[in-house]
C-alpha cells in the first residue's frame, strides 16, 4: 500500500467531511485534466515526430545529392542530420554508412560501425548491415568477427540488392581468409562457392585464381579450363591454366597453355618466365615421362653438377671446404645403375632442392635453373607421395 508508514491524520486530525468531498472531486477533475493533457501531449509528440520525419527526408535527399556530386563532407553532414531526426530509418542510416565508408578514416569507420550495430539490433538479418560490418571488421584485422558477419550476411534474409548476393559475399570472405593466411577455411569457402559459380569466363577465372592462392592447383586448373571452354581465346584463363599445370608438375600441359597465353596476347611478364621454367624443366628433369633410365641418370648427374658448382661459386673463398657441395659430389659419384633407381632419383632431386635453398641464401643473383629444379622437386614430392 502506498505510504505505509507515512503521516496519516490521527482521529483528531482527520480531514473534515467537506474537505474530503472537495478533494475527491478535485482529484477527479485533475484526472480529467491529466487525460486531456495526455491527449494534447500525444498530439504534440506526433506532430513533433512528423516534423522530424519530414526534415529528415529533406536532409536525406540533400545528402544523397551531395554525395552523388562528390561532395562527401557536406553530404555526410546532411545525412547525419537526417539520421539524427529519424534514427529508426534504416535507409538513411545505411546511406550515411556508405558515405562514411567512402570518406574513409578511423573516426568515420567508428561512427559507421556504431550506426550499423544499432541498426543490427533491429534488423539482425539484413544482408547489407552484416556485409558492411564484416568489411569494417576486416579493415581492422578482426578476421573472426568479419567471418561471423560475412556468414550472417550470407545466411541472413534474402539479398536485398545484387551487390549483396551470397556468392559475392563468399568470394570476399574467401579473399579475406587467404589474406590472413587461413588457407584451410578459405578452401572450404571456395569449395562451397564452386557449384554456384555461373558459367561465365570472368567468374571461373576469379575462382581459379582464388584456388591457386589457396594452394589447390587441381581445382584451379578445373576452373581455368572451364573458362577456356566458355571463351577459348582468353589469355588470362590460359595463363592461369598454365600456372596451375606447372604447379601440378604437368610441364607439357603447362608449356602448351602458357604458349597459348602468349599467343593470345598475355602481357604479364610472369607468363613468359613460367613458360621458360616449363621448358627448362622439360629439358632437365630426370622425372619427365618417356625418358630412358640412362637419360634420367644423366640428367640427375647434370643437376647435381649444376648445384655443386652453384654452391661452390656462391661460397666464395670457402668453396673448397663446403660440406653440402662435397655431399652432392659424393652422391653424384654413385654408380649409374644406382642413380637410375626411382628412389635414388627422387632423393637426388630433393638434395638439389635443398642445395637451392642454401644457394638462395648465399647468392643474390637468381639462376632460371633454380625455379626449374624447384618445380622438379615439387613433382618429386608428388611422386614420392
Amino acid at each position, binding site marked *: 500500500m502506498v505510504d505505509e508508514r507515512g503521516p496519516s491524520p490521527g482521529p483528531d486530525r482527520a480531514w473534515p467531511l467537506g474537505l474530503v468531498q472537495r*478533494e475527491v472531486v478535485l482529484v477527479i477533475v485533475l484526472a480529467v485534466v491529466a487525460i486531456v493533457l495526455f491527449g494534447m501531449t500525444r498530439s504534440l509528440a506526433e506532430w513533433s515526430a512528423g516534423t522530424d520525419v519530414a526534415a529528415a527526408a529533406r536532409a536525406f535527399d540533400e545528402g544523397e545529392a551531395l554525395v552523388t556530386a562528390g561532395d562527401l563532407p557536406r553530404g555526410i553532414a546532411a545525412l547525419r542530420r537526417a539520421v539524427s531526426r529519424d534514427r529508426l530509418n534504416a535507409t538513411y542510416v545505411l546511406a550515411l554508412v556508405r558515405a562514411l565508408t567512402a570518406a574513409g578514416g578511423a573516426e568515420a569507420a567508428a561512427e559507421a560501425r556504431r550506426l550499423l550495430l544499432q541498426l543490427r539490433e533491429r534488423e539482425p538479418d539484413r544482408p547489407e548491415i552484416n556485409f558492411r560490418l564484416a568489411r569494417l571488421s576486416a579493415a581492422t584485422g578482426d578476421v573472426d568477427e568479419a567471418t561471423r558477419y560475412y556468414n550472417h550476411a550470407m545466411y541472413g534474409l534474402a539479398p536485398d540488392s545484387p551487390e549483396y548476393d551470397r556468392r559475392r559475399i563468399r568470394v570476399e570472405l574467401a579473399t579475406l581468409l587467404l589474406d590472413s593466411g587461413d588457407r584451410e577455411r578459405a578452401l572450404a569457402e571456395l569449395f562451397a562457392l564452386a557449384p554456384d559459380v555461373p558459367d561465365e569466363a570472368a567468374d571461373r577465372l576469379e575462382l581459379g585464381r582464388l584456388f591457386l592462392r589457396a594452394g589447390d592447383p587441381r581445382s584451379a586448373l578445373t576452373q581455368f579450363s572451364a573458362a577456356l571452354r566458355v571463351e577459348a581465346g582468353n589469355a588470362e584463363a590460359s595463363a592461369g591454366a598454365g600456372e596451375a599445370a606447372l604447379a601440378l608438375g604437368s610441364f607439357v600441359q603447362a608449356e602448351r597453355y602458357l604458349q597459348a597465353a602468349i599467343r593470345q596476347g598475355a602481357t604479364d611478364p610472369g607468363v613468359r618466365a613460367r613458360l621458360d621454367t616449363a621448358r627448362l624443366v622439360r629439358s632437365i628433369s630426370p622425372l619427365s615421362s618417356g625418358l630412358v633410365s640412362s637419360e634420367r641418370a644423366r640428367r640427375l648427374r647434370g643437376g647435381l653438377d649444376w648445384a655443386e658448382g652453384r654452391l661452390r661459386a656462391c661460397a666464395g673463398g670457402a668453396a673448397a671446404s663446403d660440406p653440402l657441395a662435397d655431399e652432392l659430389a659424393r652422391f653424384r659419384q654413385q654408380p649409374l645403375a644406382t642413380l637410375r633407381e626411382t628412389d635414388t632419383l627422387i632423393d637426388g632431386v630433393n638434395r638439389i632442392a635443398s642445395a637451392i635453398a642454401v644457394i638462395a641464401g648465399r647468392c643474390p643473383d637468381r639462376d632460371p635453373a633454380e625455379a626449374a629444379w624447384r618445380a622438379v622437386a615439387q613433382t618429386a614430392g608428388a611422386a614420392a607421395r
Partner: protein
Amino acid sequence: MTSRWTGRWPFRSGEWRIRDSQLFLALTIVIGVLAGLSAVLFALSIDAAGHFFFGMAPSTARVILVPTLVSLLTGVLLSKYFRDARGSGVPQTKAAYHLRQGVIHPRVPIGKFVTGVLCIGSGHSMGREGPSVQIGAGLASALGQWLRLPPERVKALVPVGASAALAAAFNTPVAAVLFALEEIIADLNAPLLGSTVVASVAAVIVERTLLGNEPLFHVPEYQLQHPIELVAYVALGIAGGLASVAFGKGLLGARRFFLGLPASTRMWQPAMGGLAIGLVLVMFPQVAGVGYEHIDQALNGGLLLWGMVALCVVKGLATIVSYSTGNAGGIFAPSLFLGAMVGGAMGFVVQWLAPMVNVPVGEPGAYALVGMGTLFAGIIRAPMTSVFMIFEITQDYQIFVPLMVANLISLFISRRYQPEAIYEALLKQDRVHLPSALTRQSVGGWRAGDVMRTDIAALFVDAATPVSRALERATTEAASSLIVGRPEAIAGIVAREALERAVADGRSTSPASTVMSVDWAHVHPDHGIDVVLDRFNRNPGGLLPVLSRANVQAVEGAITRETLMQVFGSQSARRPERETTGAG
C-alpha cells in the same frame, strides 16, 4: 484510534484512514501522470526549441548569436521573475523539502519549464533531468497546496513528483525512485517508497506511450572479460573520482566567482555564458544541450581516444560556464557525458595495455558505460541510483560487479577530496544550509529553536555604528556580545570585551565592524542541544546566533548564557515531545 461519529458522514471513523490513503494513492497516480507529461513536454519543447533556434545547418554567426541572445532573455526572466529557476533544480527541490515543508511556489515549475527550454534549447551545455525534477516536484507541491492538503502531505508529494518526472525524463523508473530517496529525501529508509514507485511507474507508462519504447541509449552486451580486468575498473574508479573532484571544484569555484561579482551584473551573466558557449559550439557542436547522442556514440565505440578526451575537457568547461553563469539546466546529463568520455578513453588505454599482460579486456564502450556510473556517483553522490540507472539502461547484470567497484572507489575519492556533496555545496553558496543526516535523525529532546530568545532587536548594532555607541548599547542591554548587521543580514559578532579594549585603545569612533569577529559559529533552529552546547563556547562573549536554514544570513534568534541558564536552571523545564515526521 477511537471510534467517532461525526453525525454528518455515514461511515465510522475507522474508514477515514482508508479514504485518506486511497485519496493519496489516487493523487499519487495523477501526479505521476502529470509529472510524466511535464517531463515529456519539456523534452519535446527542448528539441523543438533547438530545431527552431538552429535550423538544419546553422551558420557560424547563428551558432554564436543564438545562445547569447536567448540567454539575454533568460537572464531577465531569471533575475526578475523566476529567481528559483536558476541552475539544476535539484538543490532547490531539496531545500523546499527539508526547509519549507515542501512548499514550492507554482511560479517555479512554470519558470523552470520556460527558462529550461530556452537555455538548453539554445545550446547551453546542461541537462534536462534536474529541471524535470524541479518541475515535477513543483507541480506536485502546487497541486498539494491547491488541494489544501495538510503540510506533511504537501511535503510528501515533493519526492513523489520529483521521482515521477525523473523516471519519465530518463526512462529509468527504479533509478528515479532511488534518486528521490537517496538525494531528495536523503534517506533510503524513507516511508515514501510506495508512493514514489507508483508515481514513477505511472510516469514511465505515460512517457513510453507517448515517445515509444526506444531506449535512451543502445548498449551492446558488455561483461567482465577476466577477473584481472577488475584492476582496470579500479583504475577507472580512481580516474572517475579525480575527474568528479575536478569538475565539482571547477563548478563551485566558477560559481563562487560569478556570485562574487556585483549584483547588478547578475542579470547579464547568463548572456556572458551564452556568448562563451556560442564560441565553443562553433568548434565543438557536440557539447550542446544534453548530449545523449554522443554518449550513445561513446557507448557503441563510435568515438576514438582523442575525440573522447577533447569532448570530456570541453564539455566539462562548457557545463561549468553554462551553470556558473546562472542559466537554467542541470548537471545530471553532463555528469553522464563526462563519465562516458572518461570511461571510453580509459577503455582505449586498457586495450592498448592489454596485450602486454596478455589478458582479454572489454571494449571501450564497456568502460564508457561504467564510467557514466562512476562520475555520476562521484559528482552527484548517489551511488545506488548510479548502479541501478546503469542496470536499467543496459538490463544486463554482467557489468554489475565492475560498476559497483568503480562507483565505490570514485565515491570514496570524491568524498575524500571534496567532502561536501555538490548539491549541498551549491545550496551553501546560495546561503541555504540543509540539515545534516544526524540533525534530521535526532528525535525529541531540546533543539536550538526551543531555547533561543527571539526578542533580540536590541542586540543588533549596525556595522557603521561607532564602537563607543555599541559599547553603550551592550552596557544598557547587559549583553556580553552584540550582533553586527541587520536581522535579515548578519555581518558578525562583537564581544563587549572587544569594544572595551577598542575604547581603551582610543578607537571609540571606529565602526563596530572593525572590531567584530568574522569567524563565528552559528546554529539552526533544528539543531539539537548537543550541537548548541558544542558551538556555544566557540563564539566571543557567549552569544550564539540561530540562523535560518533557508537563508543563512537571516537571524531567527539568539542563544545567550542567560537563556541557557533559564532553560536548564528551571526545574520546571520539560523536554519537548516530538515525533519523527514520516515524510522526512
